[in-house]
């Protein structure tokens, strides 16, 4: 169990966060400069908060009120630094065994050999960090932190030092390692996919505050606010006006029409009519209506609208289309209203390169309301 409650003031920046997590992997997610790394440093005892309390597995690391502040040496925390901070003058074996100095020699050798073996570093024991690849360095840093059998593992942007092709492989490998060692861990990242892949619970940071803390699936489908949706990098984060809200449905006035959305099943949200409301539409859930299948059926095609393509981008296997609705008035997102994502195959079948005007529909379950 990890419980963090800290305040740290700097000129022009205040970190004031509070979150808890059970024994699992927690992802601290948010833009750079939001205070994620600072939180790790406070957890590790490298920076002393001005106020608050940090408890890990019933051990109080820090408690301003009780004047408790365990030095980093006594916290037994495995810290994987951004860029890894491997000791350049020590071999892989010496790096991994660095935190085991107080143990008897036989145990030290056994433990470092075990970690080296489990992380697939066998054969590299006598290499120096400069002789290793990026992925190997990451594993050495991980091994060095895991060797001390940490109460908590901290990983600061563990994949950012790697080349893109390697990142995905190592992300999944890292996930397996974290599960395998059954260590509670806190992973800092500014990449949502990375946070989602690695963490069970995600804590969203913005300028020194926590704006949502939720299990990853909940975060994915129910961001708590417009700010969270924007930090997650979601497309089609839009603003409309409430027409009518019931526990099941919310009707939203947007671009001269009324959209129907499903209200959140877990947090029924009942804003009064005419109040502003934010919502988002996942671009892959917008359906283009085929013209060769007759007129659209309002029963099957909810939230029907029509628009013209004003831009498109080819991402290889998928195409991102930008559509401007036929409705009068200024477009919602600069020069377009909606971003729509279609697989490459669909793009070819529908001959979208020749046909630029489309009717589209959005299922009410694909319009997600963002509470204010």
């Amino acid at each position, binding site marked *: 169990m990890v419980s963090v409650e800290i305040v740290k003031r700097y000129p022009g920046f205040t970190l004031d966060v509070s979150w808890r997590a059970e024994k699992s992997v927690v992802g601290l997610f948010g833009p750079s400069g939001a205070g994620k790394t600072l939180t790790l440093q406070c957890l590790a005892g490298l920076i002393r908060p001005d106020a608050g309390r940090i408890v890990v597995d019933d051990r109080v690391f820090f408690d301003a009120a009780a004047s408790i502040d365990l030095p980093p040496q006594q916290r037994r925390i495995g810290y994987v630094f951004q*860029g890894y901070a491997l000791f350049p003058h020590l071999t892989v074996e010496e790096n991994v065994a660095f935190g085991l100095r107080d143990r008897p020699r036989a145990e030290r050798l056994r433990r470092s050999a075990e970690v080296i073996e489990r992380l697939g570093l066998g054969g590299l024991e006598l290499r120096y960090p400069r002789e290793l690849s990026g992925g190997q360095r990451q594993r050495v840093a991980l091994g060095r932190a895991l060797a001390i059998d940490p109460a908590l593992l901290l990983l600061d942007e563990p994949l950012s030092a790697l080349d893109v092709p390697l990142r995905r492989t190592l992300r999944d490998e890292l996930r397996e390692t974290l599960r395998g060692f059954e260590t509670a861990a806190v992973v800092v990242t500014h990449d949502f996919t990375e946070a989602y892949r690695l963490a069970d619970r995600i804590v969203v940071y913005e300028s020194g505050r926590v704006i949502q803390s939720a299990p990853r699936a909940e975060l994915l489908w129910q961001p708590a606010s417009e700010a969270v949706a924007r930090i997650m990098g979601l497309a089609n984060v839009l603003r409309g006006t409430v027409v009518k809200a019931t526990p099941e449905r919310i009707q939203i006035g947007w671009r001269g029409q009324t959209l129907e959305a499903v209200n959140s099943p877990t947090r029924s949200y009942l804003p009064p009519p005419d109040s502003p409301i934010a919502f988002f539409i996942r671009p892959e859930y917008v359906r283009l209506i085929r013209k060769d299948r007759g007129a659209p059926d309002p029963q099957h095609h909810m939230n029907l609208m029509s628009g013209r393509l004003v831009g498109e981008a080819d991402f290889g296997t998928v195409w991102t289309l930008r559509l401007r609705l036929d409705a009068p008035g200024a477009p919602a997102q600069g020069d377009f209203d909606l971003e729509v994502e279609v697989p490459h195959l669909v793009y070819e079948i529908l001959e979208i390169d020749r046909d630029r005007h489309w009717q589209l529909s959005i299922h009410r379950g694909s319009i997600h309301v963002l509470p204010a």
Partner: protein
Amino acid sequence: MDWFPVWLSLRVALTATALTLLAGVPTALLLARKRFPGRNVLEAMVVLPLVLPPTVLGYYLLVVIGSRGPVGRALAAIGVEFAFTWGAAVLAACVGSIALVIKSAQAGFETVDRQLEQAARTLGRSEWSVFWSVTLPLAWRSVLAGAVLAFCRALGEFGITLMVAGNIPGRTQTLPLAIYDRVQAAQMGEANALALIAVAVVVVLLFGLSRLARLRY
């Protein structure tokens, strides 16, 4: 030829180098790692011996350790005469050379990534252990370079030594003073021999240093 000045100078320079390392390395670490009130004053004081005329430094030292100075009198009370002994020559060499140890070691420590020290702390190492197993191994070349420069400077120390230790043949006459004496006495042969010895020692040391600097860690 009288070998006494050679041995005395080597002994004085070695002792002074050991003492400057002992006092200079912690000072360098302090300057490289900590922000504290008076840090700028300390930094300025460290450089002072490099820029002040040696005779001025010697004069002030003599004021302090001479028979009428505060330290001199305290020492005299316990029966120790410090000024004009080889110990005073060591002090002179220390004052003249400690800045070289401090500045060089400080520059070395500043290049050591603090994150490495933090990593060592999270891995359970005490501050003492962090220094010996991370900071020093990564900065030893700068510390050694500072020590070699300090040794060479101590070997050649003239002005301060003359003021506080005098130029007593067979007692405090170091190599540079002896060379000066021989030249004054027009004994050019001996002056030449002594000068060559000084050059040889320094050249060998600096050559060795440049070889060592090529090693990794």
